[in-house]
C-alpha cells in the first residue's frame, strides 16, 4: 500500500515536471520569436532613422526623404476608423451580450464572424465601389472607412465575449437595488468588463494600423503632407510597401526604418491602453 503510494507519487512528480518544462519551453519559444523579429527590424532599421526621416516627405532616390506624411496619414486614418468603429463595435457588442439571445442576435453574430474572416482586400474593393468610384478619387476618408469596417466586427465580438464574462450575480445585485437594466449595463457590467473591452479595442487598432491591402484601393498614397480627408492620403504601411518593392538599396533601408517606426507605434498604443485601463478595483 505504502509502496504503490510512493510509486504513484514519483510518477506524478515526473509528469508534473515534464509538463512544466514543456509549457515553459513553449512560452520561451513565443517570446523568442517576437524578440527575434523586433531585434531584426531594429538592427536593419535603426541606422536610417533620423529626425529628418521622421518629418520629411518622400523624395526622389538619392535626395533623402522620409515618412512624415505617411505617419500623419496613418494616424489620421486610424483615428477616423477608431472614432467610427469603436462606438459602433462596442455598442453592437453590448447589444449582443445583453439583449442578443434571439434570432436577430444570432444573425448579427454570424455575420460579424463572417466579416472577421473576409480578407481585408475585399473590404478595400467594397469601399472602392461604394465611396471611391462615386467621389471620383481615392481619399483618406475612404481609407478610414475601410479600416473602420475591418474593426467593427472584431470589436463587437470581443466586447460581447468580455461582457459575457461578467458574472450574472453581479447584475442581479444591481437589479435587486432597483437599478434599471441600462444602468446595470452602464454602471456595473461595462466597468467590470472595461479592461477586456479595451484590450479588444487595442488589438483591433493594432490590427488596422498594420493593414496595407485595404488602403491600396481606397487611400492610395500621396507624396505630400495632407490634412484633408477628401484627398488621397499616405500611410506607413503603403509607404513601406512602396519602399520595399523599389529597386534601390536606400529605399529598402527606409522600408526597414519605417517598419521599426510602425512596430514602435503599435507598441506604444499597447502600453498606453494597458496603463489607462489597469485594474483599479
Amino acid at each position: 500500500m505504502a509502496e504503490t503510494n510512493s510509486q504513484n507519487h514519483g510518477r506524478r512528480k515526473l509528469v508534473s515536471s515534464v509538463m512544466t518544462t514543456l509549457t515553459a519551453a513553449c512560452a520561451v519559444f513565443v517570446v523568442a520569436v517576437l524578440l527575434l523579429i523586433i531585434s531584426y527590424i531594429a538592427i536593419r532599421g535603426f541606422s536610417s532613422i533620423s529626425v529628418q526621416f521622421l518629418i520629411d516627405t518622400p523624395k526622389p532616390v538619392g535626395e533623402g526623404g522620409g515618412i512624415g506624411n505617411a505617419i500623419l496619414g496613418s494616424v489620421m486614418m486610424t483615428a477616423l476608423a477608431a472614432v467610427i468603429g469603436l462606438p459602433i463595435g462596442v455598442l453592437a457588442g453590448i447589444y449582443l451580450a445583453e439583449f442578443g439571445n434571439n434570432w436577430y442576435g444570432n444573425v448579427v453574430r454570424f455575420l460579424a464572424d463572417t466579416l472577421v474572416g473576409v480578407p481585408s482586400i475585399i473590404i478595400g474593393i467594397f469601399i472602392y465601389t461604394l465611396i471611391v468610384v462615386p467621389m471620383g478619387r481615392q481619399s483618406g476618408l475612404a481609407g478610414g472607412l475601410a479600416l473602420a469596417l475591418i474593426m467593427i466586427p472584431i470589436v463587437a465580438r470581443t466586447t460581447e465575449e468580455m461582457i459575457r464574462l461578467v458574472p450574472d450575480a453581479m447584475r442581479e445585485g444591481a437589479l435587486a437595488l432597483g437599478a434599471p437594466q441600462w444602468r446595470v449595463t452602464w454602471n456595473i457590467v461595462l466597468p467590470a468588463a472595461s479592461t477586456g473591452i479595451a484590450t479588444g479595442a487595442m488589438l483591433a487598432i493594432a490590427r488596422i494600423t498594420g493593414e496595407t491591402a485595404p488602403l491600396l484601393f481606397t487611400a492610395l498614397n500621396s507624396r505630400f503632407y495632407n490634412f484633408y480627408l477628401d484627398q488621397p492620403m499616405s500611410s506607413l504601411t503603403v509607404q513601406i510597401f512602396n519602399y520595399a518593392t523599389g529597386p534601390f538599396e536606400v529605399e529598402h533601408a527606409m522600408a526597414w526604418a519605417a517598419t521599426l517606426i510602425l512596430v514602435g507605434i503599435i507598441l506604444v498604443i499597447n502600453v498606453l491602453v494597458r496603463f489607462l485601463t489597469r485594474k483599479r478595483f
Partner: protein
Amino acid sequence: MTYRISELRQTMRSKISVSNLNFYYGKTQALQDISMEIPEREVVAFIGPSGCGKSTFLRTLNRMNDTIAGTRVEGKVTIDEQNIYASGTDVVSLRRKIGMVFQKSNPFPKSIFENVAYGIRINGIHKNKADLHERVEKALRDAALWDEVKDRLNASAFGLSGGQQQRLCIARALAVQPQVILMDEPASALDPIATQKIEELVVDLKKDYTIVIVTHNMQQASRVSDKTAFFMLGKLVEFNPTQKVFQNPDERLTEDYITGRFG
C-alpha cells in the same frame, strides 16, 4: 402567553401574500402550489433541505427569477395588495421596495464606499454629499462592518474577506431602505460574532421592515424569526409560529427534519 402574542400577530396585516404559486425551470417544476401570508414587520424563516426550493421561492418575491431564461410562474404573489406578476408591473420600483441579500456575496467592482452608495445614488435618495456619507456610514454600522472598513472606504470591495463581503452586501441592501428584505443565508459565511451581530440586526430591523430569511441553522431560525416555513421538494410542508414549529410541529416531516433525522 407567547402563543397569545403570535395569535394576535396572525391577525396583523399581511405584507406579502402568495397563493397557489407554481414555478418551473424549463420543464422541471421547482415549486408546487405554495400559499403563504407573510405579515408586516415580522421575521419569517425559511428552512428545509438543500435543493428544496428556498432560494427559488425567495427569488419569486422580487421577480429576480425573471432574469433566468426559460422560467415560468403560475399563481399569484401580492405585495401590499398589488399582484406583482400582473402585466404592467413596474419591476424596477418593485425591486427598489424589496431588498435582497444573495446566497453568494456579489459586491460590485467598485470601492467599498461606492458599493453601498450605489443604490442610494441610482434611486436619488440622498439630499447632498454629506447626507450620502451619513447614509453609507449608517448602513455599514447596521451591517456590523463599519469599524473594519472605516479606514479604507476607497479600497476595492474585492479586497474584503468573504464574510466582510457578505456584510457589505447587507449594508448595500439596507442603504436604500426597502420595505421588505429578503435574505438568502446571510450568515452562512460568517464567524459566530458577526453572525450574532447580523441576528441582532435582523431582530432590530423588524421594527421597520418585513424580513424573510433563509437559513440552514435551526438555532438561528428559532432565535430570530416569528414564523417559520419548512419546505421540502418544492412544497411548503408547514408554516407556523416559530415556537410551535420547533416545539410541537403539526407535521411529522417537520419534526424529523428539525431533530436531524434526515436533511
